[in-house]
């Protein structure tokens, strides 16, 4: 009746016909509504399968299905930004597949490995590497001939040169280096040490997995939580810029320490900075002056600024990461407020998060969505998907970011980052940090986070060296090596 012809028997009375027609109208209406919902459901299932499913299926809980796929597909290669092979699968004469990492331990955490567990791009792109986007007929023909299909190639934003430079510059020390393109959000290099050789992951697995002292499996760049030390003064300065009527009016006389309401803060190694304004307080990284600044900040507003900078919450990190933490809200105690202001106390941050904040400052306040996978190609090099850069969001105003850029430039010109000064290749800006992490106040993690060129920033570099002492002495030279390589 719905689609077919309508016939009517003769003996129906007019009344009956009317009645029937009336409720048939309602039945038809309900039929159309339900049919529409069926169609929408089908549309949704297509949308889910074609688009949404990709982000779901790449999950460690779905490893069983990844295994099933790997019986039919040869895991595809992982490429650097210029197409250099960072990981590939070779099949030997006996048909055994071997995963090869030509750069060995250089990309241990960024490209990762695929074994009992998987990390890095190998983990993030697991199902992409196990998909074979060649045409259906070729796939069927391969199946018929018992040939395994070749998996897609995953193209990353990683730069072999920068990664190698950062890797060598960090040397044998524990720590991490993150290099990001501030305009695109591309992660150019990501180093974590101690490292391991992913080529022999199966042999060394038990050893490194149980090594809780050095924890070589931990990707310190994204999962290492460190006290930010003086690099957090970027956040404190931002809050001060927001609150103060004119930060230029600020003056402070540093006698090597700050004391208020029973809280005492010392400058690094007890140094006396003397007469300071806001800019020189930042450049010389004066703890006493920043303790003084923090003491007058509004805790609720400070907390909001921290949340704007993605503390205590999610960060747009493609790798698995830990959440940075700061205790800052209207109930925060006075002592913690002062400690937080200089990046100590109960404050912890991951290097990649610091790199994101730095990128946003360098990119006029806007954070580009950090990415490491930029595209997928099939085995013949035809592009299947490309992931362009997109904005994550504005973390601060344009004015605030410019102010911070000026402060950070002054760190290089007149402050603790002077080891970046004497070069004609680029003008760098940044902030050092020497973060105390134990009862022994003489020990500190060396931090540097910065960007270059100052006038039109392109890259951000974040460095941490565990127990490296002074940021200016230990971390800055590593950043310098990366900048030199990029701008040479």
């Amino acid at each position, binding site marked *: *009746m*719905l*689609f*077919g*012809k309508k*016939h*009517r*028997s003769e003996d*129906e009375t007019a009344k*009956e016909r009317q*009645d*029937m027609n*009336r*409720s*048939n*109208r*309602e*039945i*038809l209406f*309900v*039929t159309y509504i*339900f*049919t529409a*919902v*069926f169609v929408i*459901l*089908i549309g*949704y*299932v*297509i949308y*889910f*399968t*074609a688009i*949404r*499913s*990709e982000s*779901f*299926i790449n*999950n460690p*809980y*779905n490893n*069983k*299905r990844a295994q*099933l*796929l790997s019986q039919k597909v040869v895991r595809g290669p992982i490429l650097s930004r210029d197409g250099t092979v960072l990981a590939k699968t070779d099949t030997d004469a006996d048909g055994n597949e071997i995963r090869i990492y030509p750069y060995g331990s250089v990309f241990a955490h960024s490209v990762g490995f695929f074994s009992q567990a998987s990390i890095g791009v190998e983990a993030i792109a697991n*199902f992409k590497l196990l998909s074979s986007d060649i045409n259906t007929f070729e796939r*069927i023909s391969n*199946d*018929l001939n*018992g040939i395994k299909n070749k998996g897609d190639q995953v193209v990353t934003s990683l730069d072999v040169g920068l990664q190698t430079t950062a890797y060598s510059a960090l040397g044998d020390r524990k720590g991490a280096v993150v290099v990001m393109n501030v305009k695109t959000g591309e992660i150019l290099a990501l180093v974590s040490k101690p490292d391991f050789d992913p080529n022999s992951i199966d042999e060394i697995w038990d050893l490194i997995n149980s090594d809780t002292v050095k924890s070589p499996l931990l990707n310190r760049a994204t999962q290492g939580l460190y006290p930010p030390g003086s690099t957090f003064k970027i956040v404190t300065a931002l809050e001060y810029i927001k609150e103060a009527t004119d930060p230029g009016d600020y003056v402070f006389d540093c006698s090597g320490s700050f004391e208020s309401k029973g809280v005492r803060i010392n400058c690094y190694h007890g140094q006396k900075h003397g007469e300071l304004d806001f800019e020189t307080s930042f450049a010389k990284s004066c703890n006493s002056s920043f303790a003084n600044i923090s003491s007058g900040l509004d805790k609720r507003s400070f907390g909001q600024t921290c949340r704007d900078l993605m503390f205590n919450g999610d960060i747009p990190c493609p790798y698995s990461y830990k959440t940075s933490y700061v205790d800052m809200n209207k109930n925060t105690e006075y002592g913690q407020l002062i400690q937080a202001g200089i990046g100590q106390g109960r404050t912890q941050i991951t290097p990649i998060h610091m790199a994101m904040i730095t990128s946003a400052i360098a990119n006029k306040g806007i954070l580009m969505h950090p990415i490491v996978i930029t595209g997928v190609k099939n085995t013949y090099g035809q592009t299947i998907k490309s992931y362009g850069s997109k904005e994550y969001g504005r973390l601060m105003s344009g004015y605030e970011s410019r102010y911070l850029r000026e402060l950070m430039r002054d760190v290089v010109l007149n402050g603790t980052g002077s080891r970046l000064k004497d070069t004609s290749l680029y003008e760098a800006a940044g902030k050092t940090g020497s973060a105390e992490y134990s009862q022994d106040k003489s020990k500190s993690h060396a931090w540097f986070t910065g960007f270059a060129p100052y006038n039109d920033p392109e890259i951000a570099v974040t460095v941490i060296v565990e127990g490296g002492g002074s940021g200016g002495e230990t971390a800055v030279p590593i950043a310098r090596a990366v900048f030199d390589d990029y701008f040479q």
Partner: protein
Amino acid sequence: MYTIFLTLSKYILIFLMAIYTIQCFSVFRLPDISKRDGIYIRQDIIMALIYLIAFTVMYLRSADTWLLILYALTQVTFVAFIMLYRFLYPEASKLLVNNMCMLMSIGFIILARLNFSKALKQFSVALVSIVIALVIPYILKRFKRLRRFYMLFAAAGIIALGAVLIFSTAVNGSKLNIRIGGVSFQASEFVKIIFVFSIAGMLSCMKSGYRIVIATAAAGIHVMLLAASKDLGGAVILFIVYVIMLFIATGKFLYFILGTAGAVVCSIAGYMLFPHVRVRITAFTDPVSSIDGAGYQMAQSLFAIGTGGFEGMGLMDGAPSRIPVVEADFIFSAICEELGVLFGICLILVCASCFIMFMNIAMRFNDMFYKLVAAGLAVTYGFQVLLTIGGVTKFIPLTGVTLPLVSYGSNSIMVSLIMFSVIQGLYVSVRSANGTER
């Protein structure tokens, strides 16, 4: 030969299923009945081919002789069912008979793959149910005074649901089953059918001006008893069925609007009142982050569908057993994983064609009681399909209902077959009364 067959079978199954599905809809366009018969026979052949190929693949992969026995038993049953229906009720809708067999075939294929003993148990219940299904049209033809017993139906429904609430023990937080003589009955499944009869009777036969009030009260008690037993899927289905039956009986759009608004209010109330509803909403909004708990089942279902993709992993090449309760509520995910999402979409379309056919039949009656029964059962069926498939694909929150005729479950398969047979019975009576196809 062996590899060629296994490789191509996946695509052949999708192709055959697509043709079957297209024919489900093309019959509506043919007014000439004799031409329709040709389509029905082609559908039967396609169905037999799909069944044969699927079981051959599974046999080649597993070398389990029991599969062949199950294949033979079920295939003979389907042929016998189709032949007997044609012989006993030449006026019956052949499309519905075919679809019943197609849906059961898909069910047996995937059940045999997932859990052979459950497939066997399903077969034994299906066999009994098919006998009942063959008798129901005859009973409906003989007992035309069924409509007078609407109060009895309502009372029976309320007593059954009340008994479940009081006597049964909760499984996974919900009270669903009651055991009588060693057999476990899920009362809400059976109540669905008599509920439709009682409401249809009240709305079409009662002379009282308060018929709407009485019907609403009866429906309200049913829904509240189900909600109290925490059988939310059942409660939601009966609620919607009542609202739509009321709308059709009165023609008042206001009831439709009020009903929809009521559904929204009840959903919010359900969310506030029941912790297990909140758990399901969490699993719905973000299954992956709650994968260690509430979201596990949902996430596994999405993994299955997503990994299988449009063409599927191939029969016995996936990992559908990783989804908890895969044979019952999540059977659609297993079908998508191994036979492909394209196959799954065809399955949705076959279900939709059943629904449209039900509504089509409802429109043929002059008699309001039959109209309401047919439309009520149609909505019961259509809504249940939408709930279960929408639920497992994360289109809507999960309600935990089965896919009629496909899912494993003694009560589910029996009630679904009875539901289809009731509609067939009504169709047979209207067509034989009119003598010809109208």
